[in-house]
């Protein structure tokens, strides 16, 4: 096939071209609705409808170009249902709509990784600004946009950070299926996320947005048109989350292989299940809230404008009803990965399986009852505060069960310090500090000092970055040999781990102190007495960024240049994905396996825990 022919067809290139066309179509159609006499970018009464419709048109064009509408149109014209054949080769699969869940998993890994690094770049820019309190590196308004992009990009992308790459790749394999329940929707969730990420970055062309990732009103209603990019990003992320969760639920509930009862499921699957429930229920609230905020701007409704009868509280409450389950969507997959990896490297069964499951489901359930702890100081009804203090404190009980199960799994084990294990062990340290600082924040009298300060920022960075991102890397080092068939350099991996762990703690621990000393969040300046602390944090943050670049170097070097083939089971795990060849073949299994136990049969004599009905490639 000539080079030019490769670009013809429904793929990313076509999608980008049609996306740009869709942008202009939307833009001009808005002018037809509102009025033809508006210039671009130069009017005070900026035609935001054109911006919004432009982006919506762009996303639609993008999806058409990828081929997402082919199947619905074919069915409308009467063709019988058929699953698109999985292309058996070629790198082109990764740049188009592919219904192979393994391809989608790898697409997610690279796509989310890309946006993670963009978010991280913004973090470096933030810390550059905070090196000196009375010198502006960026204009003060631009700084708020950088803060906003960092937070929003990270929250939007890392919500699917583990479910996207690892759950998409592994869930069908772990439950003995050949595919996800809805393969096309699975691909859609990925491409929506990519389109959303691009939309968020273009906010800098429209004046940015000053609200941070929480988008509080009425500040949002006052903002430049760039905030429409934020609303659209998050709404698309919300749609992607809902569909991803739905897909996971449908797959896990209905497509388990024979013999795989609920008590034999790998704990990772349980973690994905409890996260998926939250995604399906919480993300629609976000979509509705942001639509209301968008309407306040574009069509002058007054949901959140107090002077016209609206309420700023309405926004706060709606946002945090989504926002609190959202942070458990971030945390739960981390629990799942740690509990999945620990038995392999301690060579012991997962201790307290039912406790661990109960813990994760308990966190999932309780996460709906705590959101007002973000509003303790907002002037909510004072009777509510003791109740939410109690519910927030209670949520540490199921979280503690995860700790217990992990700790007892290590107890008297045969611990090997491979790179994935190191990241999982670091999770204990980081999440402990994050969780205990959460105890301070959930206590209303203490929250008087810590709310909205750098203490709260250190808390969530410890739980989200120290929890989720560390386990994200654990998952990468653990599963990339299976996904690609090549191993990652272990020495570089260990250097990456130690530098990341040390610099992460050096960066974020002093922020607790900064918060205690009175530095609020999202500020561009601070009292001179805090300069040493901030400089320490900034330098450590740059070094942390350096350690992540080291990871990138390892990733590229090992997978593009060295390409040392990895054995099918480098870790000695009894889980089913390791009984298959690396990389996993297109159809996953020659024959659907029949399960007779959970994958944690270490040290147990008697029938092996390997599922019967030998799947392809089992040695």
């Amino acid at each position, binding site marked *: 096939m000539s080079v030019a022919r490769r670009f013809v067809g429904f793929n990313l290139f076509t999608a980008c071209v049609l996306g740009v066309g869709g942008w202009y179509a939307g833009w001009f159609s808005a002018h037809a609705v509102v009025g033809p006499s508006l210039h671009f970018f130069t009017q005070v009464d900026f035609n935001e409808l054109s911006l919004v419709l432009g982006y919506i048109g762009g996303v639609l064009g993008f999806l058409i170009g990828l081929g997402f509408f082919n199947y619905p149109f074919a069915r409308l014209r009467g063709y019988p249902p058929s699953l698109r054949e999985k292309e058996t080769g070629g790198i082109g699969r990764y740049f188009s709509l592919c219904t192979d869940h393994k391809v989608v998993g790898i697409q997610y890994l690279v796509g989310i990784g890309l946006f993670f690094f963009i978010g991280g770049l913004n973090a470096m820019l933030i810390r550059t600004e905070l090196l000196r309190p009375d010198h502006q590196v960026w204009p*003060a*308004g631009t700084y*708020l946009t950088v803060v906003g992009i960092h937070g929003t990009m990270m929250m939007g992308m890392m919500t699917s950070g583990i479910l996207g790459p690892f759950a998409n790749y592994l869930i069908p394999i772990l439950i003995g299926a050949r595919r996800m329940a809805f393969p096309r929707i699975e691909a859609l969730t990925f491409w929506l996320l990519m389109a959303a990420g691009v939309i968020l970055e273009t906010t800098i062309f429209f004046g940015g947005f*000053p609200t941070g990732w929480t988008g509080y009103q009425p*500040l949002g209603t*006052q903002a430049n048109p760039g905030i429409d990019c934020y609303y659209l990003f998050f709404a698309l992320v919300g749609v992607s989350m809902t569909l991803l969760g739905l897909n996971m639920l449908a797959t896990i509930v209905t497509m388990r292989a024979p013999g795989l009862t609920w008590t034999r499921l790998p704990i990772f699957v349980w973690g994905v299940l409890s996260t998926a429930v939250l995604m399906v229920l919480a993300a629609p609230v976000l979509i509705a809230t942001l639509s209301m905020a968008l309407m306040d701007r574009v069509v002058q409704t007054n949901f959140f404008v*107090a*002077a*016209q009868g609206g*309420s*700023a*509280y309405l926004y706060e409450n709606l946002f945090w009803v989504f926002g609190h389950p959202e942070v458990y969507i971030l945390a739960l997959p981390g629990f799942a990965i740690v509990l999945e990896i620990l038995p392999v490297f301690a060579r012991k069964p997962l*201790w307290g*399986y039912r406790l661990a499951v109960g813990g994760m489901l308990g966190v999932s359930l309780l996460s709906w009852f705590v959101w007002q702890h973000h509003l303790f*100081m*907002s*002037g909510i009804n*004072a009777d509510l*505060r*003791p109740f939410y*203090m*109690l519910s927030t*404190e*209670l949520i540490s*009980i199921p979280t503690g069960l995860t700790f*217990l199960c992990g*700790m007892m799994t*290590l*107890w*008297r*084990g*045969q*611990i*090997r*310090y491979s790179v994935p294990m190191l990241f999982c062990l670091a999770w*204990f*340290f980081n999440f*402990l500090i994050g969780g205990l600082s959460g*105890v*301070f924040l959930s*206590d*209303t*009298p*203490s*929250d*008087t*000092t810590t*709310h*909205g*300060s750098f203490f709260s920022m250190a808390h969530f960075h410890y739980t989200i970055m120290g929890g989720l991102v560390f386990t994200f890397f654990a998952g990468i080092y653990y599963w990339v040999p299976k996904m690609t068939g090549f191993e990652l350099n272990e020495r570089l991996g260990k250097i990456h781990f130690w530098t990341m762990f040390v610099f992460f703690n050096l960066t974020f621990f002093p922020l607790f102190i900064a918060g*205690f*000393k*009175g530095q*609020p969040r*999202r500020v*561009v300046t601070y*009292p001179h007495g805090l300069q040493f602390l901030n400089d320490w944090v900034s330098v450590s943050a740059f070094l942390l960024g350096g350690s992540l670049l080291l990871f990138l170097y390892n990733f590229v070097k090992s997978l593009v240049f060295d390409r040392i083939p990895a054995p099918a089971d480098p870790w*000695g795990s009894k889980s089913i994905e390791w009984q298959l060849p690396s990389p996993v073949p297109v159809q996953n299994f020659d024959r659907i396996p029949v399960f007779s136990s959970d994958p944690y049969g*270490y*040290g147990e004599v008697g029938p092996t825990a390997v599922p019967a009905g030998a799947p392809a490639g089992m040695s």
Partner: protein
Amino acid sequence: MATPASKPSAERADHGKRVLIVGAALSVVSTVLVAVLGGRFLPPGNGSVQATGQVLDNTVMLAIVTPVIAGLTVFFVYVLSQFRHRGGALVDGPPLRDDSRVRVWWLVVTSTTVLFLAGFGTYELLQNGSGGGQGPNPIAVPAGPKLPVQVIAQQWQFTYRYPTYGGLETPQLVLPANTYVELHVTSLDAIHSFWAVELGVKADANPGVDNIAFVKTNGPSTFHVRCAELCGLWHGYMFNNGRVVPEAQFTAWVKSQQRDFAPLLKYLPKYSTSYFPDPQRRAG
């Protein structure tokens, strides 16, 4: 090398005992240190009765959190050094899947701790409001006379009104010492948050809402006021210093402010718990 499963039972029990004893010892030592020294380092300070209460609250919580950290540190240091795989062929550990004693004790200890923390926090909260904003209908209302001071947050400065002094409005916050102050925090535009750091007061300023917080000032001091909720461009610069001064000085200050702002008094709106300026103001 013998696997752990084949060690005699006496050695097996030792591991648990060792961890518990060392963990308990370290916990006791560190907790005592924290409880004794914590008050000096923990925020927010002692500018007010509420702040002192918060310091106590923080000390209690740190004292409870310390044994958790100490115990887990001992556990992990022990486990990660004692139970290493010491090279050679891959060997499995003992197939321990559950232990009802551990399960029950863990749940009992964590639940008790959590419930105690929630209860203690509620007690501290209801004692005197802990300086937090309680909305327009506060429940932890201290008895006795209170000086009402309204904090008006706008983009991007806090201004203060003294309704009992003729509705005087000034950009400086001066409070009399040893007095109960009833702060009414409201906003004219976006959401701000009034944070008087050393007084241990934080109350969000929501447009159209009267957020009430109580604080009893202690002796004369200065404190920082910062905005703790992102409110736009100058959020980071929305700060000033407040002062707590002796009564006589306060009265003198109020009089001087009333003199200075006399020509303005007729233009100030009537004192109200919230203000709704016209949001549709346009330039000329």
